């Protein structure tokens, strides 16, 4: 049992003196507009030029081959709509539509998707009009803190396409038939997107409504 004033960090007690210094959290904060983030190659790095068509605009950053699609989008294209949650393919916050299919951008190497078309949650709008899924998330209050929302929305758009094509899920009773989009189907198909606020009930309602529209 850790004594008062101590944190248990991976089994080792660490003494905490006074208040934690949070100043570092603001140090080095950078403006994210793409042009200010020309990453200098680190020694030994292998660089490659990739072409990414993001929400209808073409970008050609020169990147380290190790760069994930998520980092390329956030740090080099300069849009932070796809979120970095776990960076291990478990939370779904980084979900984007890659060549129209929903994928996890943290597990995709940017260099492996040269020439790909990427659509992010904020690029789903048609001019001023919101995408039906975006509108449904607002109408059903399917957002609390909002961190997972871009991933949830991209995932819902991809998932509704998959259901429309008749793709089955783990809970589809009749694999040979066409699945019906029940709440159980929606929950299973959206299970790759975690929401730590617990807005799941309203997310299911929003997706159900957008799916019926």
């Amino acid at each position, binding site marked *: 049992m850790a004594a008062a004033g101590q944190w248990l960090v*991976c089994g080792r007690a660490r003494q905490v003196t006074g208040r934690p210094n949070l100043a570092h959290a603001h140090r080095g904060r950078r403006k994210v507009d793409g042009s200010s983030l020309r990453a200098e190659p680190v020694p*030994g*790095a*292998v660089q*490659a030029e990739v072409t990414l068509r993001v929400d209808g605009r073409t970008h050609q950053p020169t990147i*380290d*081959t*190790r760069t*994930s699609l998520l980092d390329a989008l956030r740090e080099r294209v300069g849009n932070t709509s796809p979120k970095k949650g776990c*960076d*291990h*393919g478990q939370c*779904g916050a980084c*979900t984007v539509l890659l060549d129209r*299919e*929903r*994928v*996890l951008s943290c*597990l*995709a*190497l940017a*260099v*492996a998707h*040269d020439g790909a078309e990427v659509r992010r949650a904020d690029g789903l709008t048609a001019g001023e009009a919101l995408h039906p899924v975006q509108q449904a998330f607002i109408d059903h209050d399917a957002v609390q803190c909002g961190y997972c929302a871009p991933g949830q929305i991209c*995932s819902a758009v*991809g*998932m509704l396409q*998959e259901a429309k*094509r*008749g*793709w*089955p*899920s*783990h809970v*589809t009773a009749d*694999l*040979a038939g066409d699945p019906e989009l029940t709440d159980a189907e929606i929950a299973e*198909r*959206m*299970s*790759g997107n975690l929401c730590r606020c617990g807005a799941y009930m309203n997310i299911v309602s929003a997706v159900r409504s957008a799916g019926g529209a």
Partner: protein
Amino acid sequence: MRPFTFVRPSAADEAVRAVAGDPEAVFLAGGTDLVDHLRLGVARLALVVDVRTATSREVTGASNGGLRIGVAATNSELAADRRVREHYPVLAQALLSGARGQLRNMATSGGNPLQRRVPCSRWEIRHTLFRT
């Protein structure tokens, strides 16, 4: 993550030649397993060979009445294939029981058996936390 060279050959024999005999070279398809292992330092490679262009994504009927599954067919596509659902429902169920929609859209039939799973999650956690 150690720096690596990335190539995407257009023919399968080129891809095989690039990887054969080089312990620091590996095939990449969906990357769901490999990219995470590269990031964790579990896999340390010098050459990554993307085989999605060099291989097929199609699922076609084989002459013996079975199915011929392209290496680059994704788990989603394979599970959704009508012939798999009707004649090989256990395969479809197995694919749909694994991972989540976004991962199944990336993971491939060829990458699946090539996964270098670490022996246990405890070992993976040790690697992640302590880099030992």
